[in-house]
């Protein structure tokens, strides 16, 4: 499949907020309804593990199953509505120059690295560690309990008609981005993935940039 790519009409110089998130670091920020949020893959093939919470009710959060079921497709791209566990639209993807983003691969953790690669890999840095540190610093009562299955922007996890699931080389490149409009006040939580054991980051995690435009 060659996905449809949609470029943004927004100019980088008009962004109200810009920040580079280094490889292996978390990022957290509130978005107001109507704001447009972009994640820019600066050097290419970088997985960006991402969760969203309703700023008004933290029990309402991005839900992978509801999102893919409502659109009838397991991949995200322009037009995809990211839905909450209450079925409500949280954000809509409005531009995408990568073409396909993963909804099933979840986050790496110390424990899943130990199972997937070797018991000694437990001590490598992981996305769940970044998520947990961001939640601890935020100090809002959220814990591991509040880490549902996340989006992996720019990550390529194809599923075959026979049901086989694999992690493949990325389809993103330097300068590709995904952009979404907030449909409610949301908290975005990112782990810029530190995984070194599979091709999701081309074995070399790199920085991404996040940008926000006013509505």
């Amino acid at each position, binding site marked *: *499949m060659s996905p449809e790519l949609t470029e943004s009409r927004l100019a980088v110089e008009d962004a109200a907020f810009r920040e580079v998130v280094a490889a292996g670091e978390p990022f957290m920020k509130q978005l107001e309804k109507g704001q447009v949020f972009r994640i820019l893959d600066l050097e290419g093939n970088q997985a960006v593990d991402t969760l969203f919470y309703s700023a008004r009710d933290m*029990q309402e959060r991005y*839900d*992978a*199953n*509801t999102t*893919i*079921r409502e659109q*009838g*497709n*397991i*991949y995200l791209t322009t037009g995809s509505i990211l839905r909450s*566990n*209450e*079925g409500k639209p949280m954000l809509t993807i409005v531009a995408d120059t990568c073409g*396909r983003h993963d909804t*099933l*691969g*979840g*986050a790496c*953790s110390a*424990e*899943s690295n*130990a*199972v*997937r690669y*070797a*018991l000694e890999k437990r001590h490598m840095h992981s996305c769940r560690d970044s998520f947990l540190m961001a939640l601890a610093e935020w100090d809002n009562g959220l*814990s*591991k*309990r*509040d880490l*549902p*299955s996340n989006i992996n922007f720019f990550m390529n996890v194809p*599923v*075959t*008609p*026979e*049901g*086989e*699931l*694999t*992690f493949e080389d990325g389809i993103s490149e330097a300068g590709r981005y995904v952009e979404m409009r907030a449909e409610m006040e949301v908290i975005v939580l990112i782990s810029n993935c530190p995984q070194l054991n599979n091709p999701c980051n081309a074995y070399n995690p790199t920085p991404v940039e996040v940008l926000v435009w006013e509505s």
Partner: protein
Amino acid sequence: MSNTAVTTFEPSLVLWEERVPGGTHWSGVLRRGNALRVADIGGGANVSMLFYNYEDKLERYNMADTLKGQHTVYLTKGHVCYSDMGRVLCSISEDTCGWHDTISGVSNASQVRRKYGQARYQEHRNGYYRNGFDSLVNELGKYGLGKRDLVANLNLFSKVSMDDDGNMRFQEGNSSAGDVIDLRFEMNTLVVLSTCQHPLDKGSKYDPKDIDLTVWRSGTAGVEDPCRNACAENQRAFINTERLFA
């Protein structure tokens, strides 16, 4: 019929049996070394199910880790269900159905109303229309858990496959009368389930199906067990599990 070759067990090993009517919800604790057989009595059943470590409910079934570890998007005999802590909650020691859905989530109130119309308790008493989300939240509440804990669930007996472009397709008639799946518990596990219809079920009629639960003393997976040895990932997850009970 696919279900003629099902493995049997000594009746004297059976601990209990229970019928769960269609559209209802259930929860219970399954101990390490016991197995749960779930039977689709009449065909076309769906069982939305979640697992939690009974001693530490913060540890629970993890869809992504289960799929990544075994390179699969569905579950059948030989697969295991991973917790988010790299352990095996249960292993699938028997399955006559062949495909159990892991990615479609549960139905909710507005969806059930849209698909099937409204049937309220006030008029229909216990025949009122229920939905998977509220049903699971209801059971979770009995253990101090709630919406925050309703993570991506299994849908036993249902098949949703993908084409090369990722489009999801619900397979009608995936499960036949008498199909069973055996879940052999490797940890002390809280099981919560709903027998509401699958959220992608194409039927326009509210018609959830009954299931039978049978629990027996199966023992845990041995050194030669096919679930344990299906892949190196499963072997490591069993090591982690056995360390917990060492």
